[in-house]
């Protein structure tokens, strides 16, 4: 069971179970997480979610064996073309499509990340794209170590963290491929709060209750407004802002 979902009142808790002690992501995890986030978005009774690793790590990286298996048909050019050039031809539940959809799709409801241990590579994309508030334990680490192993893809770009933290820190994580510790992440405003090891989920739950007291419609309007209008001109930003205020 790679993703477990529990709802209590207006708070939905999503726990991630990858493989091994480092909680490496598998295709099944990506598919299930995608489904869980969509379900949370559609669940009218839920207004805030918590995202946490089920084990000692949040997202340690990608399980290379599982990945090799899922992308086995990319051994030849026809397979590669099917995955990247003609994605519409794919089975919608196929790994590559789900992967792409997970890291593009935006929800409108606030999500709190509770991070213990490692948050690497696509975990950073998850952090930047899908989470809005972040609680991390002191042993947490953040970064893109897959770059050291040859990963040339755009996780850093896809994460959208360039718009959330100082560029110098995103550059550090990308160019040195060295993970940064939780204290540095806190200074860089990648995370909101530092807690002791083991306390991230409890703190996230307390914060979730606080967030849940705000009317659900307001939360959605605020999150959508914040995310959507960041790059708009002032006058352009007023239009959705007013529309959201009136809705």
């Amino acid at each position, binding site marked *: 069971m790679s993703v477990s979902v529990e709802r209590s009142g207006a708070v939905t808790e999503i726990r991630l179970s990858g493989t091994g002690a480092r909680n490496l992501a598998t295709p099944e995890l990506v598919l299930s997480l995608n489904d869980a986030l969509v379900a949370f978005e559609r669940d009218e009774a839920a207004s805030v979610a918590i995202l946490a690793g089920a084990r000692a790590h949040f997202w340690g990286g990608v399980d290379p064996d599982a990945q090799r298996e899922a992308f086995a048909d990319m051994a030849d050019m026809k397979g590669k073309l099917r995955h990247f050039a003609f994605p519409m031809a794919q089975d919608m539940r196929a790994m590559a499509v789900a992967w792409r959809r997970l890291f593009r799709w935006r929800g409108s409801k606030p999500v709190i990340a509770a991070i213990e241990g490692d948050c690497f590579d696509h975990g950073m994309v998850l952090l930047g794209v899908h989470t809005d508030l972040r609680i991390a334990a002191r042993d947490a680490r953040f970064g893109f170590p897959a770059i050291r192993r040859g990963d040339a893809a755009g*996780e850093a*770009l896809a994460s959208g963290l360039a718009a959330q933290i100082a560029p110098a820190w995103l550059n550090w994580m990308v160019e040195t491929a060295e993970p940064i510790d939780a204290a540095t992440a806190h200074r860089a405003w990648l995370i909101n709060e530092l807690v002791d090891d083991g306390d991230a989920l409890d703190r996230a739950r307390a914060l979730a209750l606080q967030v849940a007291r705000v009317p659900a419609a307001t939360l959605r309007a605020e999150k959508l407004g914040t995310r959507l209008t960041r790059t708009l001109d002032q006058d352009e930003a007023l239009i959705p802002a007013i529309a959201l205020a009136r809705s």
Partner: protein
Amino acid sequence: MPVHFDVADGIATITVEGSSALNAMTYEMYNALEDTLFRKVDNDPAIKVAILLGKGANFSVGHDLKAAQAAIDVGADRQVYGPQPFYFNPFPEILSRRMYTPVIGATRGWVLGAAMCYFGLHCSLRIAGESSQFGYTEIKRGLVGASIMAQTTSQMPYALHMLMSATGDTIDARTALDAGFVNEVVPDDRVESRAREVAQLVARNPRISVKAQKMLLIRGERMPQQTASLLAGSTWSLNTLDEPMFATMNAGEAA
């Protein structure tokens, strides 16, 4: 020789040396830096990272205003700087191109005006010696634009940047660290060695991976997030098209 260039173990070291300890910048230096950064460093497959330093106690006080004024006084500005009415035609190539190779800016003393253009725009990683002072002091003399050309507005909190723009005062290394503008503050005598340590961290990584990720970040700077996600997603194929890279990635080496 205003710009020294030296490569060892995939690390390029670029040292700017002016005619005085202030390392004021001249046109000869701009041309040499442009040549070094874009033609030598970014194009050389053997170079994985560069370090940019000023020789001695200062990084650079920026454009040599005395020399510029002297040129205006004798009417030489129009010949040197071209037909533009504004006397100062700052090195356009270097302002519109970006480095895809990581560059570590390592500073001591003054980092002012035109020097901030290099530091802010081209140095992606930053080590500041304790004596570093960053700013746009030319603002006090009525000269406009360096802070915008340097694009430092997106690199530190708005209120702090406005303080620099409105007063022309500098900020020190600690303030720059707190603001996320620099990555580390070290004692002045540790600046070169720490920059080298960081360069070695970068040099351990495959060149193409780092350059591709950095290029995507630069390209994505003003891109809407959905477009950026699509671009990033499609680059995943880079991991598969270059077989050795994919094989390395899937070898399952520990992070």
